[in-house]
Structure formats: C-alpha cells, structure tokens
C-alpha cells in the first residue's frame, strides 16, 4: 500500500520532489512518500509558517491552544476515528512493533496529552501560565512576558511511535510555529498529527510543517537551521555533533542524546507474594518498544536478603518474558540487530565460564536474561529483549556502578519500600538520573515530566522583562503628570 507523509502549508504538492521510503515486505509492505524540499523551498516554507504563526498562533491564549490539542488527542483516543485507525494500521508495519503493543502504548501515551494534563504541564514550568499570553506583574517589581521562538525546528529520530508528539506539543504550548523533520524510520505520526490539528482548529492549519530529508544532508540542514530561533534535535551523539555544526551560534540548540535506564529491586519487594508482580512489571518495561526508548531498562540490580534470591528473581523475569512473547511477539530482527544480540549473548556466555554469568534463554528464544551473582558497572545491552540481572547486598551499592554512565543515565525504575526510596532518590539524582518511577512505568513518563531533567517549555522561551525603572520613568512622561 502507498501513502504520503509530510505536511506543507503554503506549498503545492506538485511543486516539490517526493521520495519513497519502504517498510515491511509482502502484504505488509507500505510505501511512504515523503516531501524532499530544496534548500530554497525550505526557506520559503519557513517564512510562510513564521508569518502564519505571528498572525494566528501568537494571538491565541494558551488555554485555547490546549483546547485544540485536547480535541485532536480526543480524536486519536477514539478507536473509531479514521486518524486513529490509520495509526493502528500503519505504525506496526512501519516500526515493526507488535500491533497490540502499539495500540496499548498509544493509549497510555496519548492520555498524558489531555487538557488537564496539558494545563499541569504548563504549570510545571510556569507558576503563572498567563506569562505566555501577556505581560504579567513580577513580585520583584516590573513585569515580564514569555515569548516562544518565531520558528522552532524539530529533528526527530527513531521509530518509537509518537515520540514527535512530545516536542510538537511543547512548541505549540509556547506558541512557536514549527517545522519538523521526520525520521526515515517513522515518518507518519507527526504528519498525521499536523493534518488532524488543522482539521480540529483551522487557526493552526498553517503554523506547522512536516518535511523529510536524508540525515547528513548538510545543505538542507544549514538552510533550515539558519531560519530557526531554536533547534530541538534527537539522536545519537554522533548525529547531534554533526547537526550542531550547522546551527548558527545565535540559535539555541537543544539536543536530546541517547540515554540509558535501569531498574532497582529492593529485598522488600522480594517475597513470594509480591515478587511475581514485580517481575511482571519489569518484563513489561523490557518488552515495550523492544527497549528502543531512552527510558527502557538495560539492567536490573536486585538486592539480596529477601525471601526470594536475586537469581530466583532473574528466573521469574525470564518466565515473564517468555509469557509476554506469546502476547507481544518480538518483531523480526534485521541481520545487524541479530548479530548485535548474538554478539552480546556470546560475550555474556564467555564471561560465564568462571561461573560469573548465567544465561537464561537460549539462542532460539526471543529474549535473554544474563544473571550475575556479582554486580558490575552499568553497560548497555543489545536491546530487543536482552537484559541483565545483577545481585547486590544493598541497593545503594548501585551508585558507584552507575558513575561511568552519568552523562547518559535517565530513568531509574524502582520497587522499594518508602524509606529506601527516599534515601536512594537523593543518591540517584546525584548519580545523574533525572527520572525515578515505579517498575512497570518506565516507558510511560507522566505528563509534564522534565525530559532529561530539563524544562521542556522554559528552555524554548525567551523572557522579556519590563523593569520597574521603565515603569517609574514612564510616569514622568505621562500626560497626567503633575
């Protein structure tokens, strides 16, 4: 089947070149044509979106923007809506992820973008959200106003369904007209969202554009970034380093690099009653999106001293992964991915010769747990349901093991008693973690989370301060002065 992606307000479809991206094989094959603009067309598009943004978006109160996003999200949550049906049909084919996994993941994710959650999201960063609408008095004196960028450029990466929605919504909430560059691995979601938004709120029909070009197309990157006030980019450090070279020094560059996450299981969670549920939650965190997310766990560190040993927990986790394979089958791996998984397995196996590592799951199973009695420093696994379980005497022994990954550490999923949780929170934060959550919730950050520890909205805006001195001085020039 053939579909088209991209969204180009102000540009005729036949005025641009189209490139075809192919996903899947046989009956599952999808050809997605994506618009490939010339650098000059990108500049024209940027000008159009910027002008429309000024005229339409910037005059809307935040509450109305939230209302529009809410209506779009409501449509996407409706199982009978044509946009929803298209996502459910195509995202699994494009990403290769299990269809039911995509459906459940979408629901959990979209729910965090309803109106009350969006209001909370704004309130997280702005104690007074009206700063985004007009000048507001400041406690220190004077007034202030938060202005979003005249043009925001998104560069998305990867195939985790829905990822672009996150930054798209951030941009809209600060009233930034935007051009998004979709990833070759998943060009659909952002395009559909832009179309749907135009349908539910005509004032937003020309303030977003969705384009595509090949990664490393420096002419396009340079042309587009030169137009932007803020560039928000996702990708590996190599990609981000390359992108940054084309961003003018006066343009704010907000990189989101690849991240690592881990799970921690306290002895308090390891009794016969609770252990199975904890293992189930941990397995779900591994299976969801095949560990492709920054929030996906690579290692579970498990404390000794509970009724259930760390090794028994590893076995329970393996059992849950085996059970989940029936419900959400792992997608077929590319040769490179298979080689990576095989290489990881072999490396674990060779470490196991002195009894240090025990592999659960053989080469034929679609998952693999590597259990170690002796915990070691956190290292990435091979993704696609490969995970380590390592035993510790006490949970806080994990802190030095995370030290080398400080720059890339993100989420820590925990199953621990309150006292431990709060004591660990401080230490984990210092170790580099930016998000602590329950096991089973690792892949579903709550609405308004501070992605990678940053202020998702505040980082986008520019504060304009009207100082008290100007107000005072103005008084002396007032027509009513004495």
């Amino acid at each position, binding site marked *: 089947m053939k579909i088209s992606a991209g969204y180009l307000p102000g540009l005729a479809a036949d005025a641009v070149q189209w490139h075809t991206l192919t996903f899947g094989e046989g009956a599952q094959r999808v050809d997605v044509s994506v618009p490939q603009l010339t650098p000059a067309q990108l500049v024209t598009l940027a000008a159009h979106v910027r002008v429309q943004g000024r005229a339409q978006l910037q005059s809307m109160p935040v509450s109305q923007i939230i209302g529009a996003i809410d209506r779009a999200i409501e449509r996407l949550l409706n199982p009978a809506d044509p946009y929803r049906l298209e996502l459910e049909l195509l995202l699994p084919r494009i990403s290769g992820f299990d269809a039911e996994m995509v459906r459940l993941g979408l629901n959990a994710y979209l729910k965090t973008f309803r109106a009350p959650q969006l209001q909370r999201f704004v309130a997280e960063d702005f104690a007074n959200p009206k700063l985004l609408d007009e000048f507001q008095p400041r406690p220190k004196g004077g007034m202030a106003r938060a202005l979003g960028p005249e043009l925001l450029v998104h560069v998305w990466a*990867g195939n985790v369904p829905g990822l672009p929605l996150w930054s798209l919504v951030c941009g809209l909430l600060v009233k930034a007209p935007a051009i998004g560059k979709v990833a070759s691995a998943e060009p659909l979601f952002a395009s559909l969202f832009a179309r749907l938004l135009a349908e539910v709120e005509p004032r937003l029909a020309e303030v977003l554009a969705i384009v595509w070009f090949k990664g490393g197309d420096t002419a396009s990157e340079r042309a587009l970034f030169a137009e932007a006030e803020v560039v928000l980019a996702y990708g590996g450090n190599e990609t981000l380093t390359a992108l940054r070279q084309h961003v003018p020094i006066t343009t704010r560059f907000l990189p989101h690099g690849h991240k*690592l996450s881990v799970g921690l299981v306290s002895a308090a969670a390891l009794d016969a009653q609770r252990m199975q549920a904890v293992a189930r939650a941990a397995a779900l965190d591994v299976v969801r999106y095949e560990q492709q997310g*920054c929030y996906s766990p690579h290692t579970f560190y498990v404390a000794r001293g509970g009724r259930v040993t760390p090794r028994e927990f590893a076995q329970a986790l393996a059992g849950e992964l085996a059970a989940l394979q029936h419900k959400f089958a792992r997608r077929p791996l*590319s040769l*490179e991915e298979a080689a990576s998984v095989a290489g990881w397995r*072999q490396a674990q196996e*060779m470490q196991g*010769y002195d009894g240090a590592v025990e592999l659960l799951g053989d080469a034929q199973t679609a998952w693999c747990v590597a259990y170690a009695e002796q915990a070691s420093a956190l290292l990435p*696994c091979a993704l696609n349901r490969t995970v380590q379980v390592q035993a510790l005497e006490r949970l806080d022994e994990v802190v030095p093991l995370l030290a080398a990954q400080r720059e890339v550490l993100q989420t820590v999923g925990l199953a621990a008693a309150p006292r431990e949780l709060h004591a660990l929170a401080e230490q984990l934060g210092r170790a580099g973690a930016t998000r602590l959550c329950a096991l089973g919730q690792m892949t579903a950050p709550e609405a308004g989370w501070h992605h990678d520890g940053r202020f998702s909205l505040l980082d986008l805006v520019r504060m304009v301060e009207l100082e008290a001195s100007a107000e005072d001085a103005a008084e002396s020039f007032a027509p009513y002065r004495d």
Partner: protein
Amino acid sequence: MNQTVTTAMQGATDGLVADLLAFIASPGATDEAFNALALRLFAHQFQHNAAFQKFCQQRGRTPRTVKRWQDIPAVPINGFKDLTLSCVPPQSCERVFMTSGTTRGDVKGRHYHPQLRVYDRSMTLNFRARFMAGRDRMRLGILFPDERLMPNSSLAHYLALALHDFGTPDSRYYLGAEGLQLDDLCATLAQVQAGGEPFALLGASYSFVHLMDALQARSLKFQLPAGSRLLDTGGFKGQSREMAMDEFYDALSITFGVPSSACINMYGMTELSTQFYDDGNAVLPAVKSGPHWIRSRVLDPLTGQDRPAGERGILAHTDLGNYNSVTTILTEDVGVQVDGGFLLLGRAQGAQAKGCSLAVDEFLRAAR
C-alpha cells in the same frame, strides 16, 4: 603438565601438523579428506584447549556428536579477546599475533602460533597462486611497517613473507617508524615507470588512501608498466577517510595506471592462518575465495544455521591452518554465498538503536 604427557602430546601434534602440511600440498583433496582432517583437528583442540572445550560443551558439541565439519562450533572472534584459545601453553609459542583492537578499546584478540611453519606454508602457496600471476618473483613495494616495528601484527608478517619469498632484491618497505617515505617511493615509481619492469605495491587499504592523498597534493600520477599489480587489505578502520569501493579502485587505477582487474584485495584476519583473495576489482563487489584448506559459510547469527544461497548472513570460516587455536571462527563480517566463493559486504556493526536508547554497538564505537 608432566614431561611424559608433554612429549606424548608433542608427538600427536607433530603427526597432525605433518598430515596437515600434506593436505595443504594436495590440491585435489576431496570433501571427505577435508572433513576427516577438520574432525581430527576438532578432537585435538577439544582435548587440549580447556576454554574451547567449555565453549563446545555449553553447545552440547563434543567429538562424539560432531560428525561434519559444519557442526564444529564457530568461536566468535571476541573469543580471541576473552579466552585463551591455544592447545599449548601460550608462553611456549613462537609468535602471538594480536588484533589492532579497533572495536573494543585496548582489549586485543590473541592468536597463538606454536611455530609458523603452517602459517607460512599456507600464505606462500596461496599468495603465489592468487597474486603472482605466474611469476616467481617481482619487484615489490610494501606500504606497511616491518616485523621489527610491529612484531604482533599478522599483516606485518604476511608482508615480510611476501617480500622475502616473492620479492626481487630491490624490493623494500616504504613505510618506517617515521611514516611514509614519500620521496623514495616517488623516485621508485618514476624509475619503474621508465624501466618497464612490472611492479607491485602492497599494503593496508588506508595506507593507499594516505599515499593517494599525498600524491595528489604533489599533482603526481603514474603509469606503471603492464603486469604491475596492487594489493590492498583491511579496509580503512578509521585510519583514513572512508572511501566507497568503486571510488577507491577508480582512484587506484587513475593514480598508478594499474587496471582495476589487477588490483587485488586480500581479506585476512588475525584469527585465521589463511587468506582470501579476489581476482581483481573490475566488477564490484568482487568474489572472494580461499584455497582448499579453508571453507566458508554464511550463517544466521542467532541460530547458527546456514543462510540460503544469495541471502545475507554472518561469515564463518573453517581454516585447517588454525591447528593450534580453533579451526572455526564466527566473524563480524556480513557476506553472501555466490558461485565460486562469497561476497564481503562490510561489517555487521551499525546496529544503531532505532529509538533513543543507547545501544551496545554505539557505546563501543564511542569508547574506541
């Protein structure tokens, strides 16, 4: 090990090596003979190499259950880093070849050679057949450091053998401790061009890139005499800029006046004792093949099963020349089985995470 056992083992090994050298010397050897020798070597390695024995046992493979050479467990090349793969104590070995350690920081793979008789015999027979084009000797230029500078490099030893066994007296190295001896090499190339005797330049692929860049900076090109040949090996390994294969061989022929059909690529590995060659690079990718004492398969990396002909998989090689380490290795190279050999399609790395999670491959690249 006590003296009696050592002597008995030495006797067994000597017999094995003698039979192996005889096999290498008989081009008409049958499949059955290959299989029989592979199984003998497997039994020998299983018995005398504890790490390999564990590796096999974990897969349920022993000399009792393995009846075909294809069933010998393939040891991933990382095994040469993590395990000691030798039937004799490593300290008793004449030479240890080490990998350049490009993928895992400074952890180097080690290939132990008790003596180099088998390696040298394998190299020289094969080199004569695949590179010398009927000549006994020719003038060679080597674009690689010598064995004194790189005693643990299998490529340095390979090139030293080429120079010693196939080079005329005026053959020499053009790369020393101070780098490329460009003036000397330019003088030689000019002299050879005028003289009309065929010349061969051999070295790492990345050295050719450096050389071509240096020649271009001097606006120099050569038209080497008919019969001249080039041999490159090893790819670019981050040592020079990356070039596409067609671009590389086009540039070689333009710079040296040697047709792509006389530009031979050697595919060798520290973990092997035998090399593969193509018959020129006029058509890309060129078909690679080896002599009768090495066989290659294209595998599914997870299941270890053969891939159907024409489908991509990971290359595994069974090299009878590896009599002391392990006969069968699993590479990280992607290949396709074709008539007359296999196509080499690059490395299987680049399994970049498609999402935003750090993947082990990316991590290793960054840690380099």
